[in-house]
């Protein structure tokens, strides 16, 4: 049944394990003050955090600011990482908290133009344009949700994290994560349907 959704369990598991080992080796070196190791970690996590934060907010400058604030915490606090969770879970938890704080500090509504700006940054072939339109609709839908609902949806569907990791990242019980995703995806579906219906 998993293959029906294009998922090969064994491949996913072995890939994750080797990347977790690489993360652990890097974070040990970073904790010892190794800047080149930190640069490697930064380059690994930049695209992942960028995708996560881009779906948390459409404000590009805020994405870049939160991303670098997150990684600066990783650099300064890597010696406090205690291996109770995966390195990725620890880093995403920092990103989640940093993003929530930044969104609360800004506390301004995001207009549709800002969301459209995302897709118009890199105009390309028709397929890219359609993907961009879909993405901007999705960003608009996600932004209509609370930051708490939005983050669990993004971590589940777009970062493929298990619910136990998400519970650690957002620091709440597993059942709360399940409930947030359940209600969040229902609301997102309704919002996307409304947007599709409103289009000419």
């Amino acid at each position: 049944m998993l293959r029906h959704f294009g998922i090969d369990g064994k491949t996913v598991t072995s890939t994750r394990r080797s990347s977790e080992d690489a993360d652990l080796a890097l974070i040990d070196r970073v904790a010892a003050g190794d800047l080149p190791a930190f640069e490697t970690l930064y380059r690994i996590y930049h695209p992942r955090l960028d995708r996560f934060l881009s779906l948390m907010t459409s404000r590009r400058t805020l994405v870049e600011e939160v991303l670098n604030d997150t990684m600066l915490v990783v650099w300064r606090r890597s010696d406090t990482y205690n291996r109770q969770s995966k390195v990725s879970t620890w880093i995403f938890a920092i990103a989640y908290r940093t993003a929530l704080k930044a969104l609360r500090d800004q506390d301004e509504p995001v207009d549709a133009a800002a969301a459209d700006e995302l897709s118009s940054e890199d105009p390309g072939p028709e397929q890219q344009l359609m993907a961009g339109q879909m993405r901007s609709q999705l960003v608009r839908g996600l932004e209509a949700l609370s930051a708490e609902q939005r983050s669990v949806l993004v971590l589940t569907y777009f970062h493929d994290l298990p619910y136990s990791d998400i519970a650690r990242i957002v620091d709440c019980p597993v059942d709360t994560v399940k409930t947030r995703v359940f209600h969040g995806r229902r609301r997102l579906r309704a919002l996307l349907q409304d947007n599709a219906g409103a289009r000419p």
Partner: protein
Amino acid sequence: MKARILPLDSAEHRSAQDLLPWFVNGTLGAAEASSVARHLAGCERCQKDAAEQAQLRASVAAMEAAGDVERGWAVLRSRIEALPPAPARRPERVTPGRWRRWLPLALAVQTALIVTLVLVLVAGPAREERYRALGAQPAASDANAVAVFRGDATSQQMRDALQAAGARIVGGPTVTDAYLLHVAHPTPQVLSRLRAQPGVLRVEALQEEASR
């Protein structure tokens, strides 16, 4: 195959609905994944939901990150370089994860040492013992088991454990804190009962002695 008819508010349906997002992203454990798969086979609503969620997931799967990693790194590096010098960072640490990897080997070596020391104590002195007080008991001559108690075991716990197994201490403690025991009926069941007592860390039968 005959389809099962399940009410939509059944506990099984609700549970499958809760787990569907992680079924779709492929991170459920084997038991939960097979439970959801079984439910999906007979529930059209969940099949539709799963397909919708898979589509949602796929809609951003090919999404490229828009950020410029070179520029981001240049900015962050300059921020790091502008930081005041940090106190000396710790060297590479010995972490619990590494300990866990060595723990089975360490325990095996410790067990082998305990058994060896006990065998030496039991078998060795019996042959070489030249000076003995009159009336002294032959040291550990009737030991048929060896036990190690927890460091925090109380004397009451030790007494209760020995009583439960019909055992008495005939020697020890050795340098590894092992006690030589004489167990009246050293059957596997009695030794298991002794192992299960509070305060008992390890119990080993001394085959040579027990078989006499």
